[in-house]
């Protein structure tokens, strides 16, 4: 294993037609006591090598389910009911467990929301940080130990040798989450999935963690899939964004375009409901999204009933894909704007 993932080979890899991750018509269903529930409905997207893509959505939008489907870590009652997931040229939606074990940690790293539960409380930091390199054979014991000390230094630990010997409870929440970022990138993966990585952190430490994530990605050419409910965070870091609601991707496009001129009424309402601290709006009434009085029809748009641009068709059929620009589309019968 050489330093194969340096920035120098990224440009060649980002050539059109060579996506790192390709999700086509993905649906995930779960069987519950109340019957079968569709968690993800006909999702399509592609990630290029080295890009930062965000999935933004509220609870129940299906954003975390997408991550679990990619990692093939869905709960026992959930399954991929249709569609394909292709990662680095290979189908992974039907891959078997040995192949998946090679993928998780090695080709795809993960940063979870809560660093306290993601780290083993009874193991020292050093072995946990170096585990993926050791398991996947990236260097001898001594080489891994050296790599751990070097990495702890670059993660901002003042005394790497001492920190490698400490237990997770001896570190602050911010430092623990930085260890988790180090672990996610440790085996030089091609993709890192970060599911709400800053939600459990003090806001004064959020910027530091996001910058660390972006710096690691810059240095390694690794693509990052960021899952977040926080519009401000997504806006600050993502190249491309997918807006999910009720299992459906209602809008997809370059982050700058989606935030500047949202095409989906849901995206527009979500952006308007973000609280602000600007003096003139501090005491103003907040913009809200009405609660549905009638449940949306399972065959129609999931946002029907809460949407201010609703038309009759919204309850009768799945919303069509409307392209607003070559790389920006919405699923909507009555978008905020036309192409």
């Amino acid at each position, binding site marked *: 294993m050489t330093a194969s993932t340096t920035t120098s080979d990224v440009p060649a890899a980002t050539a059109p037609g060579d996506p790192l991750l390709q999700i086509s018509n993905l649906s995930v269903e779960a069987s519950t006591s109340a019957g079968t529930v569709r968690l993800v409905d006909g999702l399509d997207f592609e990630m290029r090598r080295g890009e930062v893509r965000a999935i933004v959505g509220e609870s129940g939008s299906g954003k975390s389910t997408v991550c679990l489907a990619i990692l093939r870590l869905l709960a026992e009652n959930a399954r991929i009911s249709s569609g394909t997931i292709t990662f680095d040229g290979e189908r992974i939606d039907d891959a078997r467990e040995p192949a998946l074990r090679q993928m998780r940690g090695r080709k795809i790293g993960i940063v979870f929301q809560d660093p306290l539960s993601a780290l083993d409380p009874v193991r020292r930091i050093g072995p946990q940080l170096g585990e993926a390199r050791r398991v996947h054979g990236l260097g001898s014991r001594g080489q891994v130990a050296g790599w751990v000390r070097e990495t702890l230094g670059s993660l901002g630990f003042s005394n790497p040798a001492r920190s490698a010997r400490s237990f997770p409870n001896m570190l*602050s929440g911010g*430092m623990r989450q930085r260890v988790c970022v180090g672990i996610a990138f440790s085996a030089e993966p091609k993709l890192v999935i970060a599911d709400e990585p800053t939600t459990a952190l003090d806001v*004064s430490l959020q*910027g530091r963690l996001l910058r660390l994530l972006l710096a690691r990605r810059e240095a390694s050419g690794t693509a990052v899939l960021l899952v977040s409910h926080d519009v401000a965070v997504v806006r600050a870091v993502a190249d491309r964004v997918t807006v999910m609601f009720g299992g459906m991707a209602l809008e997809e496009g370059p982050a700058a375009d989606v935030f500047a001129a949202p095409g989906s009424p849901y995206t527009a309402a979500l952006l308007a409901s973000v609280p602000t601290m*600007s003096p003139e709006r501090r005491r103003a009434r907040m*913009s809200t999204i009405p609660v549905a009085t009638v449940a949306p029809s399972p065959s129609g748009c999931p946002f029907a009933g809460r949407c201010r641009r609703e038309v009759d068709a919204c309850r009768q059929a799945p919303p069509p894909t409307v392209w607003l620009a070559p790389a920006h589309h919405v699923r909507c019968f009555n978008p905020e704007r036309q192409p």
Partner: protein
Amino acid sequence: MNLAADDAILTADAIGKTFGRGTRANVAVQPTNVSFRRGRSIGIAGESGSGKSTLLRLLLGLEAPTAGAVRFEGMPIASLTRAEHRRYRATVQAVFQDPGGSLDPRLHIWQLITEPAWATGGLTRRSRRELAARLLHEVDLPERFADRLPHQLSGGERQRVAIARAVSSSPQLVLLDEPVTSLDVSVRGAIINLLADRGAELTYAVVSHDLTVIAHLTDELLIMYQGFVVERGPTDAILDAPRHPYSQALVAAVHDPLHDTGYDSDVPAGAGACPFINRCPFAMEQCVVMPDPVGQIHQVRCHLYSPDDGEDTTRGAPPLGSSDPIASTVNVTGAHQ
């Protein structure tokens, strides 16, 4: 009613809380004075571990302070008579972060929301049902919700139930512990509006790590860091020109999610030192001793400021370097309009 002359509903008199003792003592709240007066809602901001939730529990009488006393009508709440304690319970109510965990899952909504009023006396079953209908209406929930159970409602609906319950005994002071943190962005606004609409008759104590919630609901603000109130003053003054380096970092993070103070040390501060010393970009030699507060209306505990400074002096780097924080807020949230 024997209210103090300054109209205080509840007063915290140098209250502090230390867990454990001796070498294992952990000071959760350093001695703090807070006075809740009618019409002056107060925000308490800080990260987890700052002591803000412990302070709230002290005010509610859920924890006994190890220093000072919480006074209701001038009397320490620990020594209230039964009748006084009932009045304290009716006057001071709370809404907690997780409406799923704070509502008894076996009680119907009509029972839940009228319980505080019922417990303080004088309600028949019939008047209890009538009160329930009125309270549901006040929080914009349909009357048919009266006979449902908490698990049949969404998170936003449950938080409305918790608010209805808190206001059922006609309190004067409502303590809100992270009132919208567990809710989706699209329903947060509706809850904040509901609370703001009642702001004329109610006084709030809002504990949150989210300054935008505090900005919408409060007149005064306390910023806590590891048990210390490091800055306090009018909410607008602090949000417009935070003085303590920690407050500056908090405010900057709202305007710019990528803002980085550049310091996040794993080294704990020594005893007696400013707790922010190892994360502070302006740390100096004097910082090994925590200074006293400086200022009158807008107070800060930081060696960057001396008693001779005017109230409006702000030291340290502006939160966003050279750019204007207000302009960048508009940039962050104004694009959709």
